């Protein structure tokens, strides 16, 4: 309420929305870099060593990390680290995207089955929950082994490991969304003598879309993590998993490389989530602007709108 009033008041001299969010993003990035360098400077000056010693071997300078990104990855090599990390990220993203698509489809399908049959929900849901309490580290080698026996490409095996982390948020959120319309909405569909399929397409799925997109954003990040972890037992040399492992083992001699790899891994996840957000904005149309900015309030608004 208060925020709305202030926005109206400053309407006349506001910068465009995209410019303001970009400026804030840059400002926060600057602040974080300043904190990092400030910590190193102050802790060095004061001789403090807790919790982390401010030496370059554990906390490299920010400019050293950037420098490492644009230097050859190996002594005498021709490719700079950024290119190598970029290629590794693309390789991992390919696994993650395939895993994400498989997981999203399976997750959505399960939610539809559950909303159609409360019996199926009661009897299968415990297994769905249990599947997520099993450590992915334990499952990954098995999947890789099975895929190897069947002569499937290793990266496909990794995609399946990734899908294992992806489907769960989609199932839980899609189910919640499919159940979100009030009983009167279903009674209306019944009074039109709508088929179950029509009810699904015209009422339940559109009502669930905001919930599904929230889940897809969670799943997008999870699928990248799943792909990185899946690459380790698969022994795939081309993805981020192996790169991260290699740089972690040589952390004490070249810490800036691991930090650079972490930054590129994070970027891969961010790009993925940004793509989902873009799709959301195109598909979930005709919402008040204020709701588009806040997915949380979007679901509430949807519920109220239908209720």
């Amino acid at each position: 309420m208060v925020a709305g009033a202030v926005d109206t008041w400053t309407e006349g001299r506001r910068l465009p929305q995209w410019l303001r969010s970009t400026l804030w993003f840059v400002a926060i990035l600057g602040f974080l870099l300043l904190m990092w360098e400030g910590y190193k400077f102050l802790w060095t000056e004061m001789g403090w060593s807790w919790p982390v010693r401010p030496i370059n071997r554990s906390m490299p300078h920010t400019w050293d990390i950037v420098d490492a990104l644009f230097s050859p990855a190996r002594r005498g090599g021709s490719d700079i680290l950024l290119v190598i990390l970029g290629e590794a990220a693309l390789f991992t993203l390919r696994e993650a995207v395939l895993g994400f698509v498989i997981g999203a489809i399976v997750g959505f399908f399960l939610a539809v089955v559950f909303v159609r049959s409360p019996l199926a929900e009661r009897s299968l849901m415990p297994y769905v929950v249990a599947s997520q309490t099993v450590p992915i580290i334990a499952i990954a080698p098995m999947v890789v082994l099975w895929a190897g026996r069947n002569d499937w490409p290793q990266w496909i095996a990794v995609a399946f490991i990734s899908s294992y982390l992806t489907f769960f948020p989609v199932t839980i959120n899609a189910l919640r969304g499919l159940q979100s319309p009030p009983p009167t909405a279903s009674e209306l569909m019944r009074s039109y003598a709508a088929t179950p399929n029509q009810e699904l397409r015209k009422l339940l799925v559109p009502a669930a879309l905001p919930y599904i997109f929230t889940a897809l954003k969670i799943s997008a990040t999870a699928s990248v993590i799943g792909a990185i972890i899946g690459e380790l037992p698969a022994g795939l040399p081309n993805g981020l998993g192996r790169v991260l492992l290699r740089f972690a083992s040589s952390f004490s001699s070249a810490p800036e490389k691991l930090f650079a790899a972490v930054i590129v891994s994070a970027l891969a996840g961010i790009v993925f989530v940004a793509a989902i957000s873009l799709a959301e904005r195109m598909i979930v149309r005709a919402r008040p602007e204020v709701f588009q900015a806040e997915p949380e309030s979007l679901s509430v608004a949807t519920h109220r709108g239908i209720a």
Partner: protein
Amino acid sequence: MSAVDIRGVSKVFGSGPGQVEALKDIDLSIESGQFVSLIGPSGCGKSTLLRLVGDLLPPTGGSLTVAGKTPHEARLSRDYGMVFQQATLLDWRSVRANVELPLEIMGASADERTARAEEMLELVQLGDFGGHYPWQLSGGMQQRVAIARALSFKPSLLLMDEPFGALDEMTREAMQDELLRIWERSKRTVIFVTHSIPEAVFLSQRTVVMSRRPGRITRIVDIDLPYPRDEDTREDRRFYDKVTEVREALREHE
């Protein structure tokens, strides 16, 4: 043939010691084109009765027919237009698309849908709001869209469950005037559930008074005030007399 024929209908929810007898020995016959209100205290089963007629719930005993068909057959032949207390509009659809929804499900052509939606929105005086979205409308306007949607496929029977219950008094009276205007033009059978005595008297030709535990019909009050009814009706002596009659009928069984 009556539009709705209810004979010895009962409805029990649950079973064993926890069961609730919602309706008992309901007999009611409604002529085609009639406007009938169901009134009673909360829990008297008036909404349940409406849902039995509309085939949203099965009766436990007795028989119901709608224009000679079972409620199930009537629902499948799209005889019911329903309006609830909440407008239940789909907020991702424009007002026009909301009105078109039943026609879309019934497989009407795009041209027919557009034409019907325009016609219905004109009928409820929202001709200029087809492109708006539900959240841009007031509660009264949303409810008018819900009525337009219910009438869009020309059902023979309009089932209304406290449609104006969530509106403020001023809007409520305006909506009552409008509903009567629409009813007189379309001459559909209306079953209207309400807990407002003046609303029941103002709108209907017959007011069915119900009591609770178990829900049954205690009295049917004929409202022989002439149509069209308007603001003068609300101040008419005979209107007050009928309000008093319904109120006393409700009190008798408390």
